[in-house]
């Protein structure tokens, strides 16, 4: 197992529009188990942000506690990161976002961190439509404390210890839809082709963009009988379709047969194109997404892909009408009313 990250890179590494190579987007070497799904997600995040040509220091990485929440160390080393407390990342990310609306916020959490201890904060970040991408690296168990069932574990799913989980699972994608999330997707850590464009679309989206990524725990929940292991997930995967993310500057070249695709233009002119595998899905309808998730689940299938998005989403800064300039950039001149005003306030208090 490697414990040192080689610093050598191919001299002709491709550069993005900012002149950065992928190396500028990498982080420290991962200390997760070899084969952990989370590492694939880190790599997908790195790739997506590199391709989007976002300067790494304009991103803030936010996480809670757990294996998933450790991962922001392993990507975007030139970005500030905040590994907060268990289940409380949404509030810290909300505050950070309020301070500076010009940065991009990447939240990484786990199923324990979000669906159990952090359920309260998660739901409220969703309903406030905080402008951020929120990824749950969902492995159905508590990895860092050695494999206890989590709240997303399916009924009857067996972890390494062999006891079937007796409790109803929480489906975070459905919950997010019900709470009014303005972008909801599901993916699988083993499917980068699907995940990378979803991450790009989530980052370009104005508002709370939620991606539930099933990400097997190779050590504690990858055994026969588990519904969150690689084999089971691969065998039961279905997708809403293929997503293309076309940045504003690029021309749209692909064309699809009428009725099989849906196109969403984002606030910045980028386009998300969904080539549908199931024509029943309308990505502007929460009801359609919720129904399809249920239908597939009834057939023992996990529906992945883009499920819902609202291109007219109004993010929190717009709702509360906060200044266009980042709040943290305001100075005494903008903030302090001065002594003359105080004199008149005094007069009103006599």
């Amino acid at each position, binding site marked *: 197992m490697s414990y040192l990250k080689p610093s050598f890179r191919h001299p002709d590494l491709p550069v993005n529009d900012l002149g950065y190579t992928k190396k*500028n987007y990498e982080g*420290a070497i991962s200390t997760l188990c070899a084969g952990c799904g989370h590492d694939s997600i880190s790599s997908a995040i790195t790739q997506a942000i590199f391709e989007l040509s976002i*300067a*790494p*220091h*304009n991103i*803030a990485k*936010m996480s809670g506690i757990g294996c998933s929440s450790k991962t*922001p*160390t392993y990507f975007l*080393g*030139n*970005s*500030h*990161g*905040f*590994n*907060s*407390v268990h289940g*409380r990342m*949404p*509030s*810290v*990310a*909300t*505050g*950070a*976002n*309020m*301070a*500076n609306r*010009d*940065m991009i916020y990447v939240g990484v959490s786990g199923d324990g961190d979000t669906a159990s201890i952090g359920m*309260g*904060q998660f*739901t*409220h970040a969703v309903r*406030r439509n905080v402008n951020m991408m929120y990824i749950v690296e969902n492995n159905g168990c508590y990895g860092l404390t050695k494999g206890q069932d989590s709240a997303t574990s399916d009924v009857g799913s067996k972890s390494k210890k062999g006891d079937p989980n007796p409790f109803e699972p929480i489906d975070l994608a459905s919950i997010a839809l019900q709470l009014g999330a303005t972008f909801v997707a599901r993916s699988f850590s083993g499917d980068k082709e699907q995940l990378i464009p979803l991450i790009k679309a989530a980052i370009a989206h104005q508002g709370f963009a939620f991606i539930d990524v099933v990400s097997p725990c190779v050590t504690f929940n990858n055994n026969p009988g588990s519904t969150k292991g690689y084999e089971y997930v691969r065998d039961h995967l279905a997708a809403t379709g293929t997503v293309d993310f076309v940045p504003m500057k690029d021309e749209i070249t692909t064309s699809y047969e009428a009725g099989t695709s849906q196109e969403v233009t984002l606030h910045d002119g980028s386009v998300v194109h969904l080539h549908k595998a199931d024509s029943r899905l309308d990505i502007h309808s929460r009801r359609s997404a919720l129904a399809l998730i249920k239908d597939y689940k009834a057939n023992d299938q996990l529906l992945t892909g883009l499920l819902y998005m609202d291109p007219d989403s109004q993010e*929190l*800064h717009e709702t*509360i*009408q*906060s*200044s*266009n300039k980042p*709040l*943290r950039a*305001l100075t*005494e001149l*903008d*903030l*302090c*009313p*001065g*002594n003359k005003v*105080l004199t008149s*306030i*005094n007069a009103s*208090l*006599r």
Partner: protein
Amino acid sequence: MTATNTITSVNDLVIKFANVNGSGSASANNMFAKAVFRMGLSVSPKNIFPSNIQGLPTWYEVRVSDKGYIGRRGGIDIMVCVNPQSMAKDIQEVSPGGFFIYDNTKPMDLRLLRNDITFIGLPLMRICLDEYNDDRQRQLFKNVIYVGALAALINIEFDVLTGLIADQFEGKEKLIAPNIHAMELGFQYAQKHYQCPLSISLQRRDNLGDKILMDGNTACGLGAVYGGATMAGWYPITPSTSVVEGYEKYCKRLRIDPGTGKNNYAIIQAEDELAAIGMVIGASWNGARAFTATSGPGISLMSEFLGLAYFAEIPTVLIDVQRAGPSTGMPTRTQQSDITACAYASHGDTKHVLVFPSTPKECFDMTAEAFDLAEQLQTPIIMLTDLDLGMNDTMSDPLDWDDSRQYKRGKVFTAEDLESMSERFGRYVDVDGDGIPYRTYPGTHPTKGSFFTRGTSRDEYAVYTEDGSEYEKNMQRLLKKWETAKKYVPAPEIIIAEKGSSIGVLHFGTSTDATMEAIDYLTRDGLAVDSCRIRAFPFNQEIEDFIDSHRTVFVVEQNRDAQMRSLLVNDCEINPKHLIPVLNYDGMPITASFIQGKIVDYMDRAKVTPLRKDSANDNTANL
């Protein structure tokens, strides 16, 4: 019924209003207090309210003092009872020689009569029934009518009252005339039926200079505006709610960008106290000034995050408006009982900087200063105020601001700093030897200055480590920072008696007014006492020296367990026997007579010349 002996006083009284909550009495009672204030007299109103919205007994107790005392006095000279629910108890509470003013529309239960007080009946309900057709008007004007009657009974200048009505209904001028009319109805009734004024009355003075009348919570909110706070995360809880409401009120007036009409602030009502402080920490981490306000139960919930802010060294401003605990306790009663919980909030070796304001002006000043302190020290600053100061209109010196003042943002590296550095940036390197490292705001520089903020142990470069010696080094640095904090926090206020004394009293926050009044009485009775007002934790050397230089030291506080005393014993390594607790914790603001009594009792036991215990209640002494 008229008692033969009545209390006689001018400008020295305690009047208590017994009302039903939700009946609109608050604005009439406030008007009464403000009228006294506008007559140039010291006034201290205390709202004694239930944790309820409508229908339960609520009281408003107002002290007027010619000598300028604004602590609670105790003893009721005049009771204005408009709530039959509490009448029996209210009658019992009046001091002998006092007056009981009540609604006599319905006959009173004669068993409740006392012959040592004077009963004054006003047919409030009858007057309203005759005068108004609408139920809501009948209820609201009833309150205004008794204020009008009081104007006659204790000699409040009628012009002052009409001026207050005009101020109150500015913009709703239609309401001015009917309110003045209601006041006249009360005034005329009292004048016609009773000999006015009573033996207790008011006279205009010029005792106040440029004083203002303001509640501490609003002052905190305004302090946050002046201190440059741009983000408030909060969760409603009595008695702290009006801090953020005050902040919002002034932001709406003073923080709208003139160009865009947008808000130069963000207020988020959180889902709970955990999220409230989480938002504050996130915003502060990202370079904004942010704060939250809460009370005891919120402190318990915020403890986890306070530990993170301490260990990850993130500026955090938290205003704790204390109420009576433990648990839900008495949510609408005052106490100073979160001291230990705040000082050591969170698990592990954690301690926090605390500041203790005593007046609305200090609420304003300390809130603004808390942002400087938090950013200079990169740690939570917890301001401990309480319900008494926070929610009651309190007389105070006026607020002022030095326009040349600049915010002290602490040690922050800019992109230029990072660019010119030859060495590697280390978030937790003690560059200056004061325990305070340099931070960078996220997004400062494309390739330099980024770091990972975490609640886990890390080395000086913010890299995760479980190396015991690195951990220890960091904990030692935090301790050094704690020592540095002593130089930054507000110094104590020490007052030495004319010839000095071997007896000292330590006090803080809302125990101060009553303590200073008690010291006056003790001095008058021949016992000189020195005093030291604690304004912050960690304690600096002056406090230790004060304790060392006095043979007997009392610590006055409003909790059961002598929490400030414990902190002193613990932090200054003081022999507990040296510190004598004076503790009031019934949920009502502490009184001078209580403090005086405790000190006298102790000195008596210590075989010192007996002294009078209770001159605070002795009205004749003040004539």
